[in-house]
Each structure stands twice: as structure tokens, then as C-alpha cells.
């Protein structure tokens, strides 16, 4: 397969830390292979910046396999870039054209404060999970596999919800900065399984309360989150969360 190279401009948000004012800076990046990943392109830019004695662009990344949820980046007006069901680390430069200017912004939400440049603090998600995203199990030996019967459809739906990697693209895409797709995935995958039953009611109430405390907005069902989710989490989970919330809040003491 022939390999094409391209010259691009990247317009990147630079911000020293949470307390300073940021601004866009445009860089030229030359001889980029279309087989490179998006993050490799940024690595090349950063190596050059370091060589020149400048400050490299800070961005989050870890596994670079599309499974850890660490990469972010709002590329040309869409979280994780132009491809569907894809994370930024799995985005390749063949998605862009020679001479193009690529605009790279951090996730924008008050609940995701900027740490530096394109890196944001997503610990609000960790605190939401801590508020109820767990189950009670008996201690002692591990139970035998498949000893607990679970309906196939529920197992599939729970697994689809558990695909959420907590990257925060749903919040970034939402006009209300709502974390409802994330929260609904976390609540759904436990609510659908028998293991999640003991804390079913307190889970949804505590996690919604924590989400509100973190300052995320309300869901208006626009569907932008579902459209941009790298793991294609269904918006039907949000309706399930609403149902869980309505039932739990009506029956709570």
C-alpha cells in the first residue's frame, strides 16, 4: 500500500494551567504519513517543540488501543475526531487532507477543569462512580462461573452499557455539559444484573446526587452524546436511568 505524506496546520488550545487564560496557537506539521495515528502526529509536533526548546503540548493518553478511556481531544468540532465509534488514539491521519487546518480543543465543561493545554481533570467521573458504582458480594471463595442464571438479553444489554470507558466525550459533545450518558451506562450495567440488585435504589439516587454536586448539566435528549460516543453507548440507557431514578425516588423513605 502506498504511503502518502501531508503537510498540515494544527490550531491547538494552549493554556499553562487552570488559573491562566488560554489561547489558540497554530503550528505547521510537515511530512505527516497518512498511516500515523492522530496522537503520533502530536508526538512529532511535541518532539519538534522540545528540540526547539519550547513547551510540548499536553494531552492525555495511555493504552493507545482505544480501550482505556484516557485520550480525549475535541477535533474539528467533534469529540474524538471525525470517525464514528472511534477514540482519538485510533483516529488515523488518512481522515485528513493535505494542507488542512485541524482545530484541537480540550473537553469544555466547568466540571472538567483544564489542567494544562488539552488535558482536563476528569476526576468528577471517579467520584460519581465512588458514589454508587459498586456491588456488595459475599467474601470467601469466588463463586463458580455461570452459577447465577442471567437472561441472555439482560447480559447483552449490561455488557453493552459496561463498554463505557468513561472518556467524557458525552459531556464534551452535550450542549448542556450533561454526564447522563456516562452515568446511565454505569447505572444500567449494574441495574440489569442480579449482582447489582442490593444497592439498586441507593445507587441511582447517590450517583445522580453526586453528578449534580459535580456541576454537570441536565439531559435534554438531543442525542449528541450517543452520536459521538466511541463505544456507541445507547441513549436508551438514559431512559433506563430516568426510570430507575423515578422508581427509586418515589419509593425511598
Amino acid at each position, binding site marked *: 500500500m502506498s504511503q502518502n505524506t501531508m503537510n498540515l496546520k494544527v490550531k491547538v488550545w494552549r493554556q499553562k494551567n487552570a488559573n491562566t487564560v488560554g489561547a489558540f496557537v497554530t503550528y505547521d506539521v510537515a511530512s505527516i504519513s497518512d498511516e500515523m495515528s492522530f496522537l503520533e502526529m502530536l508526538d512529532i509536533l511535541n518532539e519538534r517543540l522540545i528540540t526547539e526548546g519550547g513547551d510540548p503540548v499536553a494531552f492525555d493518553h495511555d493504552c493507545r488501543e482505544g480501550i482505556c478511556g484516557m485520550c480525549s481531544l475535541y477535533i474539528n468540532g467533534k469529540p474524538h475526531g471525525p470517525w464514528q465509534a472511534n477514540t482519538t488514539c485510533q483516529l488515523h491521519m488518512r481522515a485528513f487532507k493535505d494542507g488542512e487546518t485541524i482545530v484541537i480543543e480540550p473537553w469544555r465543561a466547568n466540571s472538567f477543569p483544564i489542567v494544562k493545554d488539552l488535558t482536563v481533570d476528569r476526576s468528577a467521573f471517579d467520584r460519581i462512580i465512588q458514589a454508587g458504582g459498586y456491588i456488595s458480594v459475599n467474601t470467601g471463595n469466588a463463586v463458580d462461573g455461570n452459577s447465577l442464571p442471567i437472561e441472555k438479553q439482560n447480559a447483552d444489554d449490561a455488557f453493552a452499557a459496561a463498554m463505557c470507558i468513561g472518556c467524557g466525550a458525552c459531556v464534551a459533545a452535550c450542549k*448542556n455539559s450533561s454526564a447522563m450518558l456516562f452515568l446511565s451506562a454505569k447505572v444500567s450495567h449494574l441495574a440489569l444484573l442480579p449482582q447489582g440488585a442490593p444497592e439498586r435504589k441507593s445507587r441511582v439516587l447517590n450517583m*445522580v446526587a453526586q453528578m449534580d454536586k459535580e456541576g454537570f448539566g441536565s*439531559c435534554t435528549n*438531543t*442525542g449528541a452524546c450517543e452520536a459521538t460516543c466511541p463505544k456507541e453507548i445507547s441513549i436508551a440507557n438514559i431512559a433506563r436511568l430516568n*426510570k*430507575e431514578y423515578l422508581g427509586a425516588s418515589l419509593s425511598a423513605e
Partner: protein
Amino acid sequence: MTFKQMFTSSVGKKLVMAFTGIFLVLFLVVHAGLNACIWAMDGGVMFNKAAHFMGSFVVPRILEIGLFLGIFLHIIQGYMLTLENRSKRKIGYEVNYSKGSKWYSRSMAILGTILLMFFIIHWKHFWIPSRITGVAEMDLGNGFVVHNLYAVMQDTFQNQWVVLFYVISCIALAYHLAHGFQSAFKTIGVNNKRYHTMISTIGYGFAIIIPLAFAMMPISFYLHWVN
């Protein structure tokens, strides 16, 4: 958990929007159904009788109080939520993400504002004259005298700008319903695969048929399809 806590969380605030929205959807069916009496081609007799029933019978009068409460809750909560949600992102994006959602889903507050303006003008056209300032009457015989709201409609819809404003408002209503109908059901938790197709079909159908019926009313008077 108190009801106050329940309805003031981010999900609870949406429940208020959904419940009042569904109530207003039901009101639209009643309103459109009664107003369709203008097409009875009887010089407004049936329409005026229907309007008289709604204005004098105790049940619709009680429901009217609920209607006003529902409308005001929906409007105030809607604006509060819009302002609150906007405040959640202090620094906006250079390039906005518009492909993932429909324009009307993102513009419910603007569409709602058009409907609020319509509501005020519509109130001034019909509700205030009928309830407070008084309108001409129609004698249906045997001492049965009713407000001639049909004549008020005939008179009001001779002005082309009023007709145009009503039609634009009906278009705003159509888009508001296209998102709102389905969204309300999602908010109250009804969105499994079985109901999703049903609700979206009914929702889009409702968003076309009801505003179209309403829009045809001023047009019918303006073009003298009814006299």
C-alpha cells in the same frame, strides 16, 4: 428523600418538564378538537356551543387552572434549566458540534420563546375578551345566549400579519413537539425497543397533524373557506 429533593435534582427538573409537557400535549388535542367545530359550516353555532360548554361547565374550568399552572411551570422551569445548562460551560468551543443532534432539539428554548409570545398575543385575542372585557353575543333561541367567539375569530383573522404570525407559531409548535413529545417519554423512562418506534411514530405524526390543524384555522377564515 423528600419530593422537593426528588424534583430539584437534575433528573427531577426534567421530570417536571416532561409531566407538564405531556399535560400540555393532551390540552392541544382537546383544543384542536373543539376548534375543529369551526369547520361545521353552520355559521359558528356548533363552535360557539362548544366554547360555551368549555367556559361554563365546572370540569373544564377546574382543568383550566391546572392548565395555567402547567404552562407557567413548563415556561419558568424551561428558562431556568436553559440558563443553568448554559452556565455549565464557561468557555465555549471554536467549532461547534452540530452533526450529532437536530437543530430543533438544540433550540427548544428559542422555539418555546416564540410559543410564549404567541401565547400572550393569543390570550389577548380571545381569552381576555371572552373572560374579562366581553364579546358580542349570539342568541341560539329559547333564551340560550352564548359568546360569539366565532365572530371574534372571523374578525381577528382578517389581518394578514396576524394570520402569518399564527402560522409561524404553528411551525414553531411543530418543531417544539417533534423533539418534546419523544423527549418527554424518554425522561419518564419509556424508551425500550418496543415503545421507541411507537412513540417516535406517534410523536412525529402528532407534531405534523396538530400544528397543521391549528394553522388551517386562521387560514380558513382569511381565505373565507368558512363564513
